[in-house]
Structure formats: structure tokens, C-alpha cells
């Protein structure tokens, strides 16, 4: 789930809006009647849950206090996002091969971000520079480009929780670790097996997964798996 996506997107706009409607319905409303009530309850995102409230607080752009509006606008367009974002923007479910489409300027913005990240002393975007939606756009671009993920991850961690959404950082780190042949640690990355079933990518220390996910502002592990398999 990547937050509310715009309907003005080009090319795959219909797919994106359909995807947004599907994902939104899976989060806020209990899932379809074909599933049992028990499973439905387990797969429901409750707006009053601590992790959702934490994201809502972080995602609040209502003060319009970011410093670089043109960069923010360019980031949102590149990621195909429309602000403001609704919580949860990040549920920590990334299924390989099922990534949402980005905007037509994604490639150009990805290169710009890579340049920023690798230039010593450059102003890497943070929430104070491009707002919460702008930072989520950075995440969406980084998760689609291993080269950007490599350089952005360090910058996002270094910036700290006021400037980067911890749930985005955690999800991106999982993806990056897998790309490096390591195991994920949060349980946010899924793959499709030969039968088309969604399966969890290799993970280490699942015993402490819920503690980690709580610290990162992600939903409980069980809920994450449930959402991924919907």
C-alpha cells in the first residue's frame, strides 16, 4: 500500500486508480464476504491502531512548512502520487512483480536523487524540505531502483525519524538486503512462487519481528502477511 495515488497519471492511470481503490478497500474496510469473519478481522487495518496513528502524525502535511515546493511537486509527479497522503501510507507489503507504476518523469528524478545522494554536502531531501508526501515519493522511487536504494538508504537512516518515515526506511532496507543476497529483517518483502502464491522472502530472526515492526511503525507481522496474501 503506497498511500492515495493520483488519477491524473499518464499511461497506466486506470491501472493505478484501480489498484488504489483495491488497496484502500482492503485496508479500511473489512475484506470480502468470501473470507471468514475471523480472517477478515485479522486482515483489517484499524485507524485507531498505534502504528496507523503514528504514520498519520508523521504524514500530516497540513502546516505546509516544507521549504522546496518545486522539488516536492517534481517528486510527487515522478512517483505518481497525489498529496495529501492518508495513513497508512506504508503497510510494509512489497510483492515482487506487483509494483505500482511510477510517473513518466521517474527516471529523470531517480537520476537527480542519485546525484544528490552521492554529492558530498548536498541537501538530501527530508520532510522539512519536501514534506511527508515528498519523502514517501523518494521511497517509491528508491524501491524501484537498486542503485538509488543503495545510496538513499544511508541518507534516509542518517536523516533520522523526524525527516524520514521509519516504516519506509524499514521496508526499503528489507528490499535492499534481499538485493544484496542477505535476508530481510522486517518481513515486508514477498515473492510469487511457481503457483502464483504470495510467499515471504527469506527472513532472519522472525522471533523478534513484531518488536522490530512496532519500532518501525509497521503493522504486526501477522497482519502484514495477511495483507500480502489478499
Amino acid at each position, binding site marked *: 500500500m503506497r498511500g492515495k495515488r493520483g488519477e491524473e497519471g499518464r499511461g497506466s492511470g486506470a491501472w493505478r486508480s484501480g489498484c488504489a481503490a483495491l488497496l484502500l478497500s482492503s485496508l479500511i474496510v473489512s475484506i470480502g464476504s468470501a473470507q471468514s469473519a475471523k480472517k477478515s478481522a485479522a486482515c483489517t487495518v484499524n485507524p485507531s491502531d498505534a502504528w496507523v496513528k503514528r504514520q498519520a502524525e508523521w504524514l500530516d502535511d497540513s502546516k505546509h512548512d516544507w521549504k522546496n515546493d518545486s522539488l516536492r511537486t517534481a517528486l510527487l509527479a515522478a512517483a505518481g502520487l497525489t498529496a495529501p497522503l492518508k495513513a497508512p501510507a506504508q503497510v510494509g507489503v512489497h510483492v515482487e512483480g506487483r509494483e505500482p507504476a511510477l510517473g513518466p518523469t521517474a527516471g529523470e528524478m531517480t537520476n537527480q536523487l542519485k546525484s544528490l545522494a552521492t554529492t558530498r554536502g548536498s541537501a538530501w531531501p527530508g520532510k522539512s524540505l519536501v514534506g511527508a508526501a515528498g519523502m514517501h515519493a523518494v521511497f517509491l522511487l528508491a524501491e524501484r531502483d537498486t542503485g538509488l536504494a543503495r545510496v538513499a538508504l544511508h541518507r534516509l*537512516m542518517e536523516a533520522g*525519524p523526524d525527516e524520514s518515515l521509519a516504516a519506509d526506511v524499514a521496508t526499503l532496507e528489507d528490499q535492499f538486503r534481499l538485493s544484496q543476497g542477505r535476508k530481510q529483517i522486517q518481513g515486508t518483502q514477498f515473492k510469487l512462487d511457481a503457483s502464483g502464491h504470495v510467499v515471504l522472502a527469506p527472513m532472519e*530472526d522472525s522471533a523478534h519481528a513484531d518488536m522490530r515492526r512496532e*519500532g518501525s511503525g509497521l503493522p504486526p507481522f501477522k497482519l502484514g502477511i495477511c495483507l500480502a496474501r489478499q
Partner: protein
Amino acid sequence: MRSAITPLLVSLLAAAPALAQSATADATKRVSFADETVGREPKTFAPMVGSWVITKEGDRKVLFIDGRVWRRGQPAGGLADKARELYGARNEDFIESIRAFAYYPIAVYKGIDNFENGEISVRFQMVGGALDRCAGILFNVKPNGDYLTVRYNGTEDNVVLWTFNNGVRKFVNRAPTLTPLELGTWHTLRISIHGTSLKSWLDDKPMHDYTLPAPVSGKIGVWSKTDSMIEFDDFTVKPEAK
């Protein structure tokens, strides 16, 4: 007479190594959390920054820095009382420094007033942390809040010596070896200090061999960073004479 003395000498000679070992053992302090209360702050350490609590890991009680509740610039509760306990009348500089830079969770060991030479080791297990996963040994803690730390960072896979002076962190030396560690597994960080010589090991693999600008003298403890979730156990100190 000879027959009476001989058994006495034999028993004294036999006891000598045991006595020496006992003396060494007496000097060595190994912290156990077995008698501590789960969910409470440790009695053996004074948490200055961060949420340090005793937790249960399997059948053991361990010390846990809980980064889930980390907030930027927030000292641990009761800081003034703890600083007074550690430094008496000289506690105000310490409090000021800690408050000015409450970014790095630290807990000061209460069992040793002044560590100058010897070894310090601690077992640690990384549990989590989105931004950091740091486990460090704190040493050379001065009454004004300055200190040194050798730490492992699980987000960078490295062991680094940092110095903190007047609330400002400065990189000193990075061990050349990158060592990725799995979360949920126990490892040992160890340092030895003899005069200005500092050496460090991670799981017995040499990391640092560094010369400090001045000898070490101060309190010791454990260190972490921002939202790290780390479990510590078997904090062991082997002080040696100069």
C-alpha cells in the same frame, strides 16, 4: 617435624594457583541480571539516556535498550538523582552535557568508579531498529559528560571508536573489517586498554589496535544509538593495575 611440614608445604603450594585465580576472579566483575526485575530499570547500571529495562530472553534476564520508545533529546527518568549518585556534588556539568546531547542512549555501570586499565566485554544481541542497531562499550566517562565508545553498528556492519566532547560526537577510528551479523544472534564485543593502547575484538576477531591521545580514566557502561533495540548480557570488567 619434617613429616608435619611437608604436607603443609604441599597444601600451600597446591593452594597457591587457586589463591591467585581467586584473586583474579575477585578483581573481575561480571554482571548478572538474574536478580533483577523484568520491566524495571537495572540496579547495576544507571540509565542516563534512553529506556533501559530488564527483559526476559529465553530463560535469561538481560538488559534491553528499547528503541521503540526513543525520543530525540530525551534523557532517562530521574537523571538528576542518578547523576548525583554517580558524581556527587560534581553532577551538574554531567547533567548539562547529557541533556544537551541526549541522542545516544547510555547506561553507566555502578560497580566501578574509575576504570583505567584492563578489559571490558559485553555480549549483545541485535533485536531491531529502523535507523540504527548499535551496541557499544562506554568508557572514559568524565564528570562533565565527555566519554569514549567502541560500538558495533548493525546497519553499517562495522566497529568504530567515537569520542564525545562537550556534547559533540567525533569519529576517531573505524576497524577495517566489515562484519555483517544476523539479528537475533548473540555476539561479544571486547576492548582492552593499557595506558594509551586500545584494542577491540568482535567475537574474538581483532578490530582495533589504536593509540589514544591520552590514558583512560573514568566510569564505564553500555552505549547505543537512537532507535536501536539491543539486548546486553554478561557485562564483564577485568581491571588491571597500571
